[in-house]
Protein backbone atom coordinates (compact mmCIF):
# COMPACT_ATOMS: atom_id res chain seq x y z
CA UNK A 1 0.00 0.00 0.00
CA UNK A 2 1.34 3.36 -1.04
CA UNK A 3 1.94 5.84 1.69
CA UNK A 4 0.04 9.12 1.87
CA UNK A 5 3.07 11.02 0.63
CA UNK A 6 3.39 8.74 -2.40
CA UNK A 7 -0.25 9.29 -3.23
CA UNK A 8 0.09 13.06 -2.91
CA UNK A 9 3.11 13.02 -5.22
CA UNK A 10 1.28 10.90 -7.73
CA UNK A 11 -1.69 13.25 -7.81
CA UNK A 12 0.57 16.28 -8.18
CA UNK A 13 2.40 14.72 -11.12
CA UNK A 14 -0.82 13.77 -12.91
CA UNK A 15 -2.08 17.30 -12.37
CA UNK A 16 1.08 18.73 -13.92
CA UNK A 17 0.69 16.44 -16.94
CA UNK A 18 -2.93 17.45 -17.26
CA UNK A 19 -1.91 21.09 -17.40
CA UNK A 20 0.49 20.33 -20.23
CA UNK A 21 -2.01 18.32 -22.26
CA UNK A 22 -4.65 20.99 -21.71
CA UNK A 23 -2.26 23.68 -22.97
CA UNK A 24 -1.32 21.55 -25.97
CA UNK A 25 -4.97 21.04 -26.77
CA UNK A 26 -5.64 24.75 -26.76
CA UNK A 27 -2.59 25.51 -28.88
CA UNK A 28 -3.66 22.82 -31.34
CA UNK A 29 -7.15 24.31 -31.49
CA UNK A 30 -5.75 27.72 -32.36
CA UNK A 31 -3.37 26.26 -34.93
CA UNK A 32 -6.14 24.13 -36.37
CA UNK A 33 -8.20 27.21 -37.11
CA UNK A 34 -5.31 28.77 -38.96
CA UNK A 35 -4.53 25.57 -40.84
CA UNK A 36 -8.16 25.20 -41.84
CA UNK A 37 -8.30 28.77 -43.12
CA UNK A 38 -5.11 28.20 -45.11
CA UNK A 39 -6.50 25.00 -46.59
CA UNK A 40 -9.72 26.75 -47.54
CA UNK A 41 -7.92 29.73 -49.06
CA UNK A 42 -5.86 27.39 -51.20
CA UNK A 43 -8.87 25.54 -52.55
CA UNK A 44 -9.83 27.96 -55.39
CA UNK A 45 -6.42 27.63 -57.02
CA UNK A 46 -6.54 23.85 -56.90
CA UNK A 47 -10.08 23.63 -58.28
CA UNK A 48 -9.34 26.12 -61.07
CA UNK A 49 -6.19 24.23 -61.93
CA UNK A 50 -8.13 20.99 -62.06
CA UNK A 51 -10.82 22.47 -64.29
CA UNK A 52 -8.27 24.01 -66.66
CA UNK A 53 -6.53 20.67 -66.86
CA UNK A 54 -9.78 18.82 -67.40
CA UNK A 55 -10.67 21.21 -70.23
CA UNK A 56 -7.32 20.75 -71.84
CA UNK A 57 -7.20 17.01 -71.44
CA UNK A 58 -10.69 16.68 -72.90
CA UNK A 59 -9.72 18.70 -75.96
CA UNK A 60 -6.37 17.06 -76.68
CA UNK A 61 -7.69 13.51 -76.18
CA UNK A 62 -6.15 11.01 -78.55
CA UNK A 63 -3.15 13.09 -79.54
CA UNK A 64 -0.09 10.89 -79.81
CA UNK A 65 2.73 13.04 -78.44
CA UNK A 66 1.19 14.09 -75.16
CA UNK A 67 3.53 14.81 -72.26
CA UNK A 68 4.50 11.68 -70.39
CA UNK A 69 3.32 13.16 -67.10
CA UNK A 70 -0.22 12.82 -68.38
CA UNK A 71 -0.03 9.54 -70.21
CA UNK A 72 2.56 7.78 -68.07
CA UNK A 73 5.61 5.96 -69.32
CA UNK A 74 3.52 3.05 -70.53
CA UNK A 75 5.00 0.94 -67.81
CA UNK A 76 4.32 0.45 -64.13
CA UNK A 77 7.36 -1.37 -62.86
CA UNK A 78 8.72 1.23 -60.51
CA UNK A 79 6.50 3.09 -58.10
CA UNK A 80 7.36 6.21 -56.19
CA UNK A 81 5.61 6.75 -52.88
CA UNK A 82 5.61 10.29 -51.55
CA UNK A 83 4.65 9.96 -47.91
CA UNK A 84 3.73 13.19 -46.13
CA UNK A 85 3.52 13.11 -42.36
CA UNK A 86 3.99 15.50 -39.46
CA UNK A 87 7.23 16.65 -37.93
CA UNK A 88 5.99 16.10 -34.42
CA UNK A 89 4.35 13.34 -32.48
CA UNK A 90 1.72 13.44 -29.74
CA UNK A 91 -1.09 13.63 -32.25
CA UNK A 92 -2.80 10.30 -31.77
CA UNK A 93 -2.72 7.86 -34.64
CA UNK A 94 -2.16 10.58 -37.24
CA UNK A 95 1.37 9.66 -38.30
CA UNK A 96 1.02 5.93 -37.86
CA UNK A 97 -2.18 5.72 -39.90
CA UNK A 98 -0.58 7.46 -42.88
CA UNK A 99 2.49 5.27 -42.51
CA UNK A 100 0.30 2.19 -42.26
CA UNK A 101 -1.52 3.03 -45.47
CA UNK A 102 1.79 3.63 -47.23
CA UNK A 103 3.21 0.40 -45.87
CA UNK A 104 0.21 -1.65 -47.00
CA UNK A 105 0.44 -0.06 -50.42
CA UNK A 106 4.17 -0.72 -50.58
CA UNK A 107 3.80 -4.33 -49.47
CA UNK A 108 1.12 -5.07 -52.04
CA UNK A 109 3.30 -3.55 -54.76
CA UNK A 110 6.28 -5.59 -53.62
CA UNK A 111 4.13 -8.71 -53.63
CA UNK A 112 3.34 -8.00 -57.27
CA UNK A 113 7.04 -7.93 -57.98
CA UNK A 114 7.27 -4.18 -58.53
CA UNK A 115 10.07 -1.96 -57.39
CA UNK A 116 9.27 0.81 -54.96
CA UNK A 117 11.01 4.01 -54.02
CA UNK A 118 9.94 6.22 -51.17
CA UNK A 119 10.29 9.93 -50.54
CA UNK A 120 9.45 10.87 -46.99
CA UNK A 121 8.20 14.34 -46.26
CA UNK A 122 8.14 14.87 -42.53
CA UNK A 123 10.28 13.32 -39.85
CA UNK A 124 7.73 11.10 -38.16
CA UNK A 125 6.83 9.11 -41.24
CA UNK A 126 10.51 8.69 -41.99
CA UNK A 127 11.10 7.34 -38.49
CA UNK A 128 8.33 4.78 -38.89
CA UNK A 129 9.02 3.68 -42.46
CA UNK A 130 12.77 3.54 -41.95
CA UNK A 131 12.31 0.38 -39.91
CA UNK A 132 10.78 -1.64 -42.73
CA UNK A 133 11.86 0.12 -45.90
CA UNK A 134 15.31 1.46 -45.06
CA UNK A 135 16.66 0.54 -48.50
CA UNK A 136 13.74 1.90 -50.48
CA UNK A 137 13.74 5.37 -48.96
CA UNK A 138 15.57 7.49 -51.48
CA UNK A 139 14.98 10.86 -49.96
CA UNK A 140 13.85 12.51 -46.77
CA UNK A 141 12.51 16.04 -46.87
CA UNK A 142 12.67 17.80 -43.56
CA UNK A 143 10.17 20.60 -43.09
CA UNK A 144 10.91 21.21 -39.44
CA UNK A 145 12.50 24.58 -40.04
CA UNK A 146 9.31 25.94 -41.60
CA UNK A 147 6.63 26.94 -39.13
CA UNK A 148 3.87 27.01 -41.70
CA UNK A 149 3.96 25.06 -44.90
CA UNK A 150 3.86 27.35 -47.89
CA UNK A 151 3.75 26.92 -51.61
CA UNK A 152 7.53 27.11 -51.76
CA UNK A 153 7.95 23.94 -49.74
CA UNK A 154 5.46 22.15 -51.96
CA UNK A 155 7.36 23.46 -54.97
CA UNK A 156 10.58 22.08 -53.55
CA UNK A 157 9.07 18.62 -53.11
CA UNK A 158 7.40 18.86 -56.52
CA UNK A 159 10.68 19.70 -58.21
CA UNK A 160 12.35 16.67 -56.66
CA UNK A 161 9.58 14.41 -57.92
CA UNK A 162 9.63 15.90 -61.42
CA UNK A 163 13.42 15.71 -61.68
CA UNK A 164 13.35 12.05 -60.79
CA UNK A 165 10.54 11.41 -63.22
CA UNK A 166 12.41 13.19 -66.00
CA UNK A 167 15.44 11.02 -65.21
CA UNK A 168 13.23 7.97 -65.68
CA UNK A 169 13.60 6.78 -62.11
CA UNK A 170 10.00 5.70 -61.73
CA UNK A 171 6.78 5.15 -63.68
CA UNK A 172 4.00 5.86 -61.24
CA UNK A 173 3.95 8.32 -58.35
CA UNK A 174 1.49 8.27 -55.47
CA UNK A 175 1.06 10.84 -52.74
CA UNK A 176 0.10 9.81 -49.22
CA UNK A 177 -1.42 12.26 -46.81
CA UNK A 178 -4.31 12.62 -44.44
CA UNK A 179 -7.46 14.30 -45.64
CA UNK A 180 -9.08 16.53 -43.07
CA UNK A 181 -12.73 15.60 -42.58
CA UNK A 182 -13.31 16.91 -39.07
CA UNK A 183 -11.52 17.23 -35.76
CA UNK A 184 -12.21 13.60 -34.96
CA UNK A 185 -11.95 12.18 -38.48
CA UNK A 186 -8.84 12.37 -40.59
CA UNK A 187 -8.72 10.02 -43.52
CA UNK A 188 -5.38 8.70 -44.71
CA UNK A 189 -5.48 9.03 -48.48
CA UNK A 190 -3.45 7.78 -51.42
CA UNK A 191 -3.54 9.99 -54.49
CA UNK A 192 -1.94 9.25 -57.81
CA UNK A 193 0.27 12.06 -59.06
CA UNK A 194 1.84 10.60 -62.18
CA UNK A 195 0.26 9.77 -64.60
CA UNK A 196 -1.86 12.78 -63.79
CA UNK A 197 -5.42 12.02 -62.91
CA UNK A 198 -7.82 14.28 -64.68
CA UNK A 199 -11.06 15.21 -63.01
CA UNK A 200 -14.08 13.94 -64.86
CA UNK A 201 -17.21 15.77 -65.90
CA UNK A 202 -17.38 17.74 -62.67
CA UNK A 203 -14.17 19.55 -63.54
CA UNK A 204 -15.14 20.22 -67.14
CA UNK A 205 -18.49 21.54 -66.04
CA UNK A 206 -16.96 24.01 -63.65
CA UNK A 207 -14.67 25.25 -66.39
CA UNK A 208 -15.54 26.57 -69.80
CA UNK A 209 -18.80 24.69 -70.06
CA UNK A 210 -17.84 23.11 -73.35
CA UNK A 211 -16.68 26.33 -75.00
CA UNK A 212 -14.17 25.98 -77.80
CA UNK A 213 -10.89 27.38 -76.61
CA UNK A 214 -8.04 28.94 -78.46
CA UNK A 215 -4.63 28.06 -77.12
CA UNK A 216 -1.60 30.22 -76.90
CA UNK A 217 1.07 29.04 -77.61
CA UNK A 218 -0.27 25.50 -78.19
CA UNK A 219 -2.15 22.88 -76.26
CA UNK A 220 0.92 20.77 -75.73
CA UNK A 221 3.06 23.69 -74.64
CA UNK A 222 0.43 24.67 -72.10
CA UNK A 223 0.14 21.09 -70.89
CA UNK A 224 3.90 20.94 -70.51
CA UNK A 225 3.78 23.90 -68.17
CA UNK A 226 0.56 23.01 -66.48
CA UNK A 227 1.32 19.44 -65.48
CA UNK A 228 4.32 20.14 -63.22
CA UNK A 229 2.36 22.93 -61.57
CA UNK A 230 -0.63 20.70 -61.13
CA UNK A 231 1.61 18.18 -59.41
CA UNK A 232 2.98 20.84 -57.09
CA UNK A 233 -0.52 22.07 -56.34
CA UNK A 234 -1.59 18.56 -55.40
CA UNK A 235 1.38 18.24 -53.07
CA UNK A 236 0.60 21.67 -51.65
CA UNK A 237 -3.02 20.72 -51.04
CA UNK A 238 -1.82 17.49 -49.44
CA UNK A 239 0.54 19.36 -47.14
CA UNK A 240 -2.17 21.81 -46.10
CA UNK A 241 -4.70 19.06 -45.48
CA UNK A 242 -2.03 17.28 -43.51
CA UNK A 243 -1.34 20.35 -41.40
CA UNK A 244 -5.02 20.70 -40.56
CA UNK A 245 -5.37 16.96 -39.89
CA UNK A 246 -2.32 16.96 -37.65
CA UNK A 247 -3.68 19.75 -35.49
CA UNK A 248 -7.11 18.15 -35.43
CA UNK A 249 -5.66 14.80 -34.42
CA UNK A 250 -3.50 16.44 -31.77
CA UNK A 251 -6.47 18.35 -30.44
CA UNK A 252 -8.61 15.26 -29.96
CA UNK A 253 -5.66 13.23 -28.64
CA UNK A 254 -4.86 15.91 -26.09
CA UNK A 255 -8.53 16.28 -25.22
CA UNK A 256 -8.81 12.62 -24.32
CA UNK A 257 -5.46 12.79 -22.52
CA UNK A 258 -6.75 15.67 -20.43
CA UNK A 259 -9.92 13.75 -19.68
CA UNK A 260 -8.00 10.62 -18.73
CA UNK A 261 -5.78 12.66 -16.45
CA UNK A 262 -8.90 14.11 -14.81
CA UNK A 263 -10.28 10.64 -14.22
CA UNK A 264 -6.99 9.46 -12.80
CA UNK A 265 -6.86 12.42 -10.44
CA UNK A 266 -10.37 11.64 -9.26
CA UNK A 267 -9.51 8.00 -8.58
CA UNK A 268 -6.25 8.80 -6.85
CA UNK A 269 -7.89 11.47 -4.71
CA UNK A 270 -10.51 8.96 -3.63
CA UNK A 271 -7.82 6.46 -2.64
CA UNK A 272 -5.90 9.22 -0.92
CA UNK A 273 -8.90 10.31 1.15
CA UNK A 274 -9.80 6.74 2.07
CA UNK A 275 -6.26 6.02 3.18
CA UNK A 276 -6.15 9.25 5.17
CA UNK A 277 -9.43 8.45 6.91
CA UNK A 278 -8.35 4.88 7.58
CA UNK A 279 -5.21 6.21 9.20
CA UNK A 280 -7.13 8.71 11.34
CA UNK A 281 -9.55 5.99 12.41
CA UNK A 282 -6.66 3.72 13.24
CA UNK A 283 -5.00 6.41 15.31
CA UNK A 284 -8.26 7.17 17.12
CA UNK A 285 -8.75 3.49 17.93
CA UNK A 286 -5.24 3.36 19.25
CA UNK A 287 -5.78 6.41 21.46
CA UNK A 288 -9.16 5.18 22.75
CA UNK A 289 -7.97 1.68 23.46
CA UNK A 290 -4.91 3.18 25.13
CA UNK A 291 -7.14 5.36 27.32
CA UNK A 292 -9.37 2.39 28.17
CA UNK A 293 -6.43 0.35 29.27
CA UNK A 294 -5.55 2.93 31.91
Amino acid at each position, binding site marked *: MASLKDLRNRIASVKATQKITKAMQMVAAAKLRRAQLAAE*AARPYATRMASVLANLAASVGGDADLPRMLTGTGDDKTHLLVVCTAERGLCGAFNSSIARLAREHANSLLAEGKTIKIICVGKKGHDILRRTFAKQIIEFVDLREFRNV*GYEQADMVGRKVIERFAAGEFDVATLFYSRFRSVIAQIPTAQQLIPAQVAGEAGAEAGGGGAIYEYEPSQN*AILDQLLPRNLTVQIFTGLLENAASEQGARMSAMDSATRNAGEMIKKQTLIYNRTRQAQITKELIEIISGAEAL
Partner: protein
Amino acid sequence: MSTFHFELVAPERILYSGEVESVGLPAAEGDMTVLAGHAPVMATLKTGFLVIAEPGSADKRVLVQGGFADIGPKGATVLAERALFSEELTVDELDREIARARSVADAMEDGAEKEDALAAIVRLEDAKATLRA
Protein backbone atom coordinates in the same frame (compact mmCIF):
# COMPACT_ATOMS: atom_id res chain seq x y z
CA MET B 1 -18.38 50.00 -70.97
CA SER B 2 -19.49 46.50 -70.16
CA THR B 3 -17.65 44.58 -67.51
CA PHE B 4 -16.80 40.98 -66.83
CA HIS B 5 -15.72 38.94 -63.85
CA PHE B 6 -12.00 38.62 -63.28
CA GLU B 7 -10.12 36.61 -60.70
CA LEU B 8 -6.47 36.50 -59.84
CA VAL B 9 -5.70 33.36 -57.87
CA ALA B 10 -2.45 32.47 -56.13
CA PRO B 11 -1.84 29.03 -54.63
CA GLU B 12 -2.30 30.38 -51.12
CA ARG B 13 -5.39 32.53 -51.68
CA ILE B 14 -7.52 34.56 -54.06
CA LEU B 15 -5.73 37.86 -54.60
CA TYR B 16 -8.32 39.70 -56.62
CA SER B 17 -11.90 39.06 -57.52
CA GLY B 18 -14.29 41.54 -59.06
CA GLU B 19 -15.92 43.11 -62.08
CA VAL B 20 -13.48 44.74 -64.44
CA GLU B 21 -13.58 46.55 -67.77
CA SER B 22 -10.41 45.11 -69.16
CA VAL B 23 -7.35 43.12 -68.18
CA GLY B 24 -3.96 43.36 -69.83
CA LEU B 25 -2.04 40.10 -69.78
CA PRO B 26 1.65 39.43 -70.44
CA ALA B 27 0.88 36.34 -72.52
CA ALA B 28 3.71 34.13 -73.70
CA GLU B 29 3.40 35.24 -77.31
CA GLY B 30 2.89 38.92 -76.67
CA ASP B 31 0.84 41.17 -74.47
CA MET B 32 -2.89 41.04 -74.93
CA THR B 33 -5.85 42.89 -73.52
CA VAL B 34 -9.06 41.11 -72.65
CA LEU B 35 -12.39 42.92 -72.82
CA ALA B 36 -15.84 41.63 -72.00
CA GLY B 37 -17.04 39.00 -74.45
CA HIS B 38 -13.55 37.86 -75.44
CA ALA B 39 -13.33 34.53 -77.23
CA PRO B 40 -12.33 31.66 -74.94
CA VAL B 41 -8.54 31.51 -74.77
CA MET B 42 -6.12 29.64 -72.65
CA ALA B 43 -2.68 31.18 -72.51
CA THR B 44 0.52 30.86 -70.55
CA LEU B 45 1.96 34.01 -69.04
CA LYS B 46 5.51 35.22 -68.82
CA THR B 47 6.95 37.58 -66.24
CA GLY B 48 5.33 40.99 -66.55
CA PHE B 49 2.55 43.25 -65.40
CA LEU B 50 -1.13 42.46 -65.35
CA VAL B 51 -3.14 45.62 -65.82
CA ILE B 52 -6.56 45.47 -64.22
CA ALA B 53 -8.93 48.25 -65.26
CA GLU B 54 -11.82 48.60 -62.84
CA PRO B 55 -14.73 50.82 -63.74
CA GLY B 56 -14.29 54.24 -62.18
CA SER B 57 -10.89 53.82 -60.59
CA ALA B 58 -7.25 53.86 -61.53
CA ASP B 59 -5.71 50.80 -63.14
CA LYS B 60 -4.19 48.23 -60.85
CA ARG B 61 -0.88 46.78 -61.88
CA VAL B 62 0.24 43.39 -60.65
CA LEU B 63 3.63 41.86 -61.26
CA VAL B 64 3.25 38.17 -62.09
CA GLN B 65 5.99 35.66 -62.68
CA GLY B 66 4.56 33.04 -64.94
CA GLY B 67 1.13 31.51 -64.73
CA PHE B 68 -1.96 30.77 -66.78
CA ALA B 69 -4.85 32.77 -68.05
CA ASP B 70 -8.14 31.03 -68.59
CA ILE B 71 -10.55 33.26 -70.45
CA GLY B 72 -13.94 31.63 -70.68
CA PRO B 73 -17.47 32.71 -71.49
CA LYS B 74 -18.18 33.39 -67.81
CA GLY B 75 -15.12 35.47 -67.10
CA ALA B 76 -11.37 35.40 -66.87
CA THR B 77 -9.13 33.71 -64.34
CA VAL B 78 -5.40 34.10 -63.93
CA LEU B 79 -3.54 31.44 -62.01
CA ALA B 80 -0.25 32.92 -60.87
CA GLU B 81 2.29 31.39 -58.55
CA ARG B 82 3.90 34.65 -57.59
CA ALA B 83 2.01 37.90 -57.85
CA LEU B 84 2.80 41.27 -56.31
CA PHE B 85 0.56 44.33 -56.44
CA SER B 86 2.47 47.32 -57.68
CA GLU B 87 1.30 49.51 -54.76
CA GLU B 88 2.96 47.08 -52.40
CA LEU B 89 6.00 46.68 -54.58
CA THR B 90 9.26 48.17 -53.37
CA VAL B 91 12.71 48.25 -54.92
CA ASP B 92 14.01 46.01 -52.14
CA GLU B 93 11.32 43.46 -52.81
CA LEU B 94 12.06 43.50 -56.51
CA ASP B 95 15.74 43.06 -55.77
CA ARG B 96 14.88 39.97 -53.76
CA GLU B 97 12.74 38.64 -56.59
CA ILE B 98 15.51 39.29 -59.09
CA ALA B 99 18.03 37.52 -56.89
CA ARG B 100 15.64 34.59 -56.56
CA ALA B 101 15.00 34.44 -60.29
CA ARG B 102 18.72 34.60 -60.91
CA SER B 103 19.45 31.71 -58.59
CA VAL B 104 16.77 29.68 -60.37
CA ALA B 105 18.24 30.57 -63.75
CA ASP B 106 21.78 29.76 -62.62
CA ALA B 107 20.70 26.30 -61.57
CA MET B 108 19.32 25.59 -65.05
CA GLU B 109 21.18 24.00 -67.88
CA ASP B 110 21.61 25.97 -71.08
CA GLY B 111 18.67 25.80 -73.39
CA ALA B 112 15.32 27.34 -74.13
CA GLU B 113 14.28 27.23 -70.48
CA LYS B 114 17.33 29.12 -69.34
CA GLU B 115 16.78 31.71 -72.03
CA ASP B 116 13.23 32.17 -70.79
CA ALA B 117 14.48 32.55 -67.24
CA LEU B 118 17.05 35.12 -68.31
CA ALA B 119 14.43 37.02 -70.28
CA ALA B 120 12.27 37.03 -67.14
CA ILE B 121 15.12 38.61 -65.19
CA VAL B 122 15.44 41.33 -67.85
CA ARG B 123 11.72 42.08 -67.49
CA LEU B 124 12.08 42.22 -63.71
CA GLU B 125 14.93 44.70 -64.13
CA ASP B 126 12.68 46.74 -66.40
CA ALA B 127 10.00 46.71 -63.73
CA LYS B 128 12.55 47.97 -61.24
CA ALA B 129 13.54 50.78 -63.57
CA THR B 130 9.93 51.88 -63.99
CA LEU B 131 9.41 51.72 -60.27
CA ARG B 132 12.39 53.97 -59.62
CA ALA B 133 11.26 56.48 -62.22
